[in-house]
């Protein structure tokens, strides 16, 4: 199934894996990251910082539970604020993981094979961060289960005509499929870890997680079918989840939200920010864990090109939003366009255009695409830009409504910032644990890239 697509003649691309590796060397190198590598000072230091930030978030959340959403800067007219900005941002970041693991699997892109595992983990953790925000944004978070249709004592269904309910289904489906897909992809590697572990209890833990994997042909045949089916299930989610998220806005009549271009441009923006996050993670991981052989410049360059492409779709979205504002002739829509450039949040909008459209254009230069430093910086820039995009959509649209009586400003409080930065800590702490406890690059999929694997296949 997995075919290594070699470099086409005449092209000057890096290989998907450095030469000179064997089945054994791949297994040893990846499993050693977890099993034999000692607890380094860098890991402890990094994890401790993230864990501290996480505690800060927990403090803010306790206060939020105790006092209510009034501790945030949200108020009418800006009732959504950071919570929804961050929700959309995080859920968008998750999309790259699913795109890499599902769509690139179906398209047989062999370069996905070494980055898919941690991209999927990134998806899971990002969905977890995203899921927190709408729940804490509820006035009474402890009854969040009212969002689900179940035989409740109120004898009422949730309002199925509300996109916020579609959101619940979209995000919970997405979280579930991502988890199953990630876990199924891990099974053969968990068995490898079980067989390479020295201590009995470690063997037992990995053994339980490996679900009795014995590497038999029958296992592999069923496994590949199941993985492909899951890939097929996950593929529409890449498009559907952020489409539904965009409906939260597009269904509303607020000027700046009520536009049909939102679904495609949200999806493109999601993949844009997702690949930026993949690079922000991949560049340090390959450096600190010495994975340059497996995560090659080819991966970085391909990701950069995906960013360049989706960045232009996003730019097209901005352009057409502005064009339709003008073309539609509606005074409120025209005001949105004017207000973005001249209103009190103009610096944010200008910064968004800089971060998302102007600066990433230097990716046209191949030297930039191959430079770890510049790629990392541009990825950070895109992450900031995409966050600003959601800020502009949520806050700038809401702060000037149809009536001057409902004009207002939004000032985030320390609790807004604590929970936003706290989720960054949560996300990074989870990544640290993931790198420590599970094989961060898929061993068996890397092995299938070797020439030996193909020789066996042809026999």
């Amino acid at each position, binding site marked *: 199934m997995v075919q290594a697509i070699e470099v086409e003649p005449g092209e000057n691309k890096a290989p998907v894996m450095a030469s000179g590796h064997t089945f054994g060397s791949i297994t040893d190198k990846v499993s050693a990251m977890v099993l034999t590598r000692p607890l380094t000072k860098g890991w402890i230091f990094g994890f401790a910082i993230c864990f501290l930030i996480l505690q800060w978030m927990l403090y803010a959340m306790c206060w939020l539970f105790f006092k209510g959403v009034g501790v945030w800067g949200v108020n009418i007219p800006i009732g959504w604020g950071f919570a929804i900005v961050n929700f959309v941002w995080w859920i968008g970041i998750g999309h790259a993981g699913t795109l890499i693991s599902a769509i690139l699997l179906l398209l047989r892109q062999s370069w996905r094979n070494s980055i898919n595992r941690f991209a999927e983990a990134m998806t899971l953790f990002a969905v977890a961060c995203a899921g927190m925000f709408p729940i804490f944004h509820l006035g009474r978070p402890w009854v969040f289960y009212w969002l689900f249709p179940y035989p409740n004592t109120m*004898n009422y269904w949730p309002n199925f005509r509300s996109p916020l309910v579609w959101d619940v289904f979209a995000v919970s489906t997405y979280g579930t499929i991502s988890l199953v897909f990630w876990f199924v992809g891990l099974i053969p590697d968990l068995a490898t870890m079980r067989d390479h572990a020295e201590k009995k209890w470690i*063997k037992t833990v990995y053994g339980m997680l490996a679900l009795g994997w014995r590497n038999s042909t029958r296992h592999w045949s069923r496994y590949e079918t199941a993985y492909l089916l899951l890939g097929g299930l996950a593929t529409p989610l890449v498009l559907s989840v952020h489409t539904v998220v965009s409906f939260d806005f597009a269904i509303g009549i607020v000027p700046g939200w009520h536009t049909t271009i939102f679904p495609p441009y949200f999806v493109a923006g999601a993949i844009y920010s997702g690949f930026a996050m993949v690079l922000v993670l991949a560049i340090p991981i390959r450096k600190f864990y010495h994975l340059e052989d497996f995560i090659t410049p080819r991966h970085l360059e391909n990701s950069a090109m995906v960013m360049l492409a989706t960045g232009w779709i996003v730019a097209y979205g901005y352009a057409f939003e502005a064009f339709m504002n003008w073309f539609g002739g509606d005074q409120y829509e025209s005001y949105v366009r004017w207000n973005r450039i001249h209103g009190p949040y103009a610096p944010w909008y200008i910064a968004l255009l800089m971060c998302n459209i102007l600066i990433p254009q230097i990716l046209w230069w191949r030297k930039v695409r191959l430079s770890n430093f510049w790629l990392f910086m541009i990825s950070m820039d895109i992450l900031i830009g995409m966050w600003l995009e959601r800020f502009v959509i949520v806050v700038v649209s809401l702060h000037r409504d149809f009536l001057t009586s409902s004009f207002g400003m939004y000032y985030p409080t320390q609790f807004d910032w604590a929970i936003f930065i706290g989720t960054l800590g949560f996300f990074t702490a989870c990544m640290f644990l993931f790198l420590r406890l599970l094989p961060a690059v898929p061993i068996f999929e890397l092995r299938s890239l070797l020439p030996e694997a193909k020789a066996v296949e042809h026999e």
Partner: protein
Amino acid sequence: MQIFHRATNTIAKATIFGSIFLLAFILWACIQFQRSPYVTYAHVARPQPVPFSHEHHVGAIGLDCRYCHTSVEKSSFAGIPPTQTCMNCHSQIWLGAPMLEPVRASYRSGKSLVWNRVNDLPDFVYFNHSIHINKGIGCNTCHGPVDRMPLMYNEASLQMEWCLDCHRDPAKYIRPRSQVFNMRYEPPSGSKPMELDGKLYTDQLVLGKDLVKQYNLRTVADITSCSTCHR
């Protein structure tokens, strides 16, 4: 080296299979728990300063509901009688009963008896007795057989699904206005037909449909609108 015993395969399969049933059971148990008297207090008699028996006063003596609950026809609140209402009779009978000492004490001091509320709706619900009484909803439709309650308890769960059961189809419960305070009212049936305005009814739903029209009840859309009760 084998880490796990051979039996692990069976245990693993049983666990995966069993967890579906376990989850279904937990969900079912939660749903049942939320509707149980432990949560709703339905059919649980509450202690009172005086063990007042509706069974005795309504069932045996035959007092009308409105003798004590005077404002039920014209106010949202049915009304709790002042001690003077009790003393109408109890200044003449059972003068020395120790059980009634708190009533006499209240009469002497002028301080009201503090009853424990039994049918207690949440504060976020607006409820009006008079509209229900005037549109033909009997007392015992909601309060149950009060004339057979030695100590007061709430008949209904008072959960929203219970309210909506009637608000979504009032024809199921509505009765002639003349029968609202009749504790032993029986809806018309084949064996016990009812004559009303020269028409013979053998079915509650047929009667209900006519009464809903006759009493000008609001539409179901109106009375199931959120803000009808959550104002």
